[in-house]
């Protein structure tokens, strides 16, 4: 794959494809060239190298663009994206709240952004102080004394949680064999349990959409290491029997793991440690506003009881009379840690942003966050319940769940509702999740949306639901029509995978 980029054989989109402010933009491989660059560098001195006779002899084939071309290319691409900065993302369980700009400024302070993870600890005491301060806030909010900050994302946080539990149990002599997972759980839960060497068994939900306590009790035995649940759960409901659940789990010698994806509903109102939970992860990119960045990076710190603390992953950052210390290896101090989950200390850039968010809100602001998030979701519930069937009617927490029952007689599918919303300027809600509800639509507005936006969303949803004529249905099945691309052929993408550009890829205008 080391050929020259064959630009001349490829057709670049013509200006006829442009539509006003929307400009068709080819790939960098279709416009750049190997001899162009947007960077000026000092002269090289042509000394003999010491590359061990492995100096590269051929071209890589990477295109380069001048700075103006680069700016245009990516600016044009960005205009094909929806974003929180543009409008509402009512994605259930994602908590797409406003990303404060102050967080971006403080994360870029050179004292945080330009320090190397292996600098002598004496030169980065301020960074370690920040990490401990974030831990203190998370302790105050969750009630857990120990926070492991290194997991890179929620899924890694879950893995951390299960590894801590397994390490504890192994030390007792028996790691046990199974993890019970709520049937409404996110796919990361069973995937994580499998990575930890556990078999997963499902606990059904009851008719009210919460965990079936009796079913849980009947499945608890001395082979269950942990029970994983989300609270509030993925149906948007608070597990009211949480104290009974945790008692039952503890009585069988197992641990209760809480997936903290929905923490936004209860932050500042209740501490999960007071609900009998033993260990949980938090998503800094959900509750704590760090930006989603088109797919990441996230951060998934894990909060745990003092019984589990000795097993927390490396490194440990601690405060002593001589300042902040970093423990990077298993040894006399961190004997029982289950190991290191990643090369460095954690997602420092996200820590700075999250701490900025926490200090900005304070305790009063955070409580208001939960109250407004829950208020907004119930306001939407009130506005939609006559038009969309809801499997679990009644008060919800920060997200409201609809299903496709009311759509069926009209001939609509959940997917069509989602695509129709796009044409109206909204990102769709979460669809087809949780799996226990047919054609699920999980709507989470978050607290940073105005009443006006909520009213507009409700109106849009009602308009879509009330389309009962065949012509309107047919139109909805073709949605979206106003976007730069219409429905894309996902079957073709999977059956004939083209996962990179290569000189043979031709495009048509």
């Amino acid at each position: 794959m080391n050929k020259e980029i064959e630009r001349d054989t490829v057709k670049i989109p013509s200006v006829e494809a442009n539509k006003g402010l929307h400009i068709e933009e080819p790939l960098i491989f279709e416009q750049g060239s190997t001899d162009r660059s947007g960077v000026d560098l000092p002269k090289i001195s042509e000394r003999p190298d010491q590359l061990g006779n492995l100096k590269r002899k051929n071209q890589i084939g990477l295109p380069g663009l001048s700075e103006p071309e680069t700016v245009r290319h990516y600016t044009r691409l960005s205009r094909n994206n929806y974003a929180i900065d543009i409008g509402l993302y009512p994605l259930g369980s994602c908590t797409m709240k406003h990303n404060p700009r102050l967080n971006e400024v403080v994360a870029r302070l050179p004292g945080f952004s330009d320090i190397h993870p292996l600098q002598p600890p004496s030169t980065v005491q301020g960074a370690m102080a920040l990490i401990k301060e974030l831990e203190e806030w998370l302790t105050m909010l969750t009630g857990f004394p120990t926070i492991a900050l290194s997991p890179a994302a929620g899924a890694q946080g879950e893995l951390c949680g299960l590894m801590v539990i397994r390490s504890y149990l192994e030390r007792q002599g028996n790691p046990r064999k199974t993890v019970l997972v709520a049937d409404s759980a996110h796919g990361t839960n069973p995937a994580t349990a499998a990575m930890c060497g556990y078999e997963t068994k499902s606990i059904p939900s009851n008719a009210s959409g919460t965990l079936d306590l009796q079913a849980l009790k009947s499945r608890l035995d001395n082979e269950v290491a942990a029970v994983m649940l989300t609270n509030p759960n993925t149906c948007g409901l608070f597990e009211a029997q949480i104290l009974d659940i945790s008692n039952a789990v503890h009585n069988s010698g197992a641990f209760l793991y809480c997936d903290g994806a929905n923490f936004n509903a209860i932050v500042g109102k209740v501490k999960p440690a007071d609900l009998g939970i033993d260990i949980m992860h938090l998503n800094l990119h959900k509750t704590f506003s760090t930006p989603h960045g088109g797919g990441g990076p996230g951060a998934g710190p894990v909060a745990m009881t003092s019984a589990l603390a000795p097993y927390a992953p490396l490194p440990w950052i601690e405060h002593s009379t001589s300042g902040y210390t970093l423990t990077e290896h298993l040894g006399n101090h961190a004997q029982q840690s289950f190991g290191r989950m990643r090369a460095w200390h954690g997602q420092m850039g996200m820590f700075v942003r999250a701490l900025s968010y926490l200090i900005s809100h304070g305790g009063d602001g955070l409580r208001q966050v939960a109250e407004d998030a829950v208020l907004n979701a119930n306001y939407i519930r009130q506005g939609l319940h006559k038009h969309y069937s809801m499997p679990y009617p009644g008060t919800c927490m920060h997200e409201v769940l609809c299903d496709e029952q009311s759509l069926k007689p009209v001939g609509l599918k959940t997917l069509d509702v989602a695509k129709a919303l796009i044409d109206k300027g909204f990102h769709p809600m979460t669809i087809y999740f949780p799996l226990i509800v047919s054609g699920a639509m999980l709507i989470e507005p978050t607290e940073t949306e105005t009443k006006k936006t909520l009213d507009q969303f409700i109106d849009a949803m009602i308009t879509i639901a009330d389309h009962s004529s065949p012509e309107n249905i047919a139109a909805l099945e073709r949605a979206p029509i106003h976007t730069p691309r219409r429905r894309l052929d996902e079957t073709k993408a999977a059956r004939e995978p083209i996962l990179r550009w290569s000189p043979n890829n031709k495009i048509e205008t």
Partner: protein
Amino acid sequence: MPEAKYTKDHEWIRLEAGREEAERTGIVGITNFAQEQLGDIVFVELPEVGITVKKGDESATIESVKAASEFFTPVSGEIININDAIIDDPGLINSDPLEVGWFFSIKLSDPSELANLMDETTYESFVNSLR
């Protein structure tokens, strides 16, 4: 065409005609209901020829755009032949799940297992109860 038998997991088996009792072989696949539920199938992984499987073993994997599913062997036996056509064109499973979209053929080690499977009428009522 001999009658097919069905499992609760929406697999079918059809015995090949004209064989003696001791040499019963059948071909297997997934039902129309299964392919509807899965949506457009993009990939299928079939077992190796020559291996022995037990009834209920996960012996093939089917992937669609939005889902993945395991294929559980309806009967025990030895895999004789696999259908390369569906590897090259998984869409055949969607367009013709009962004939062209067959998965593999198997030499039955215990033909009495067939008695526990559903016949066509029973399977159809079963599917109707799910819809």
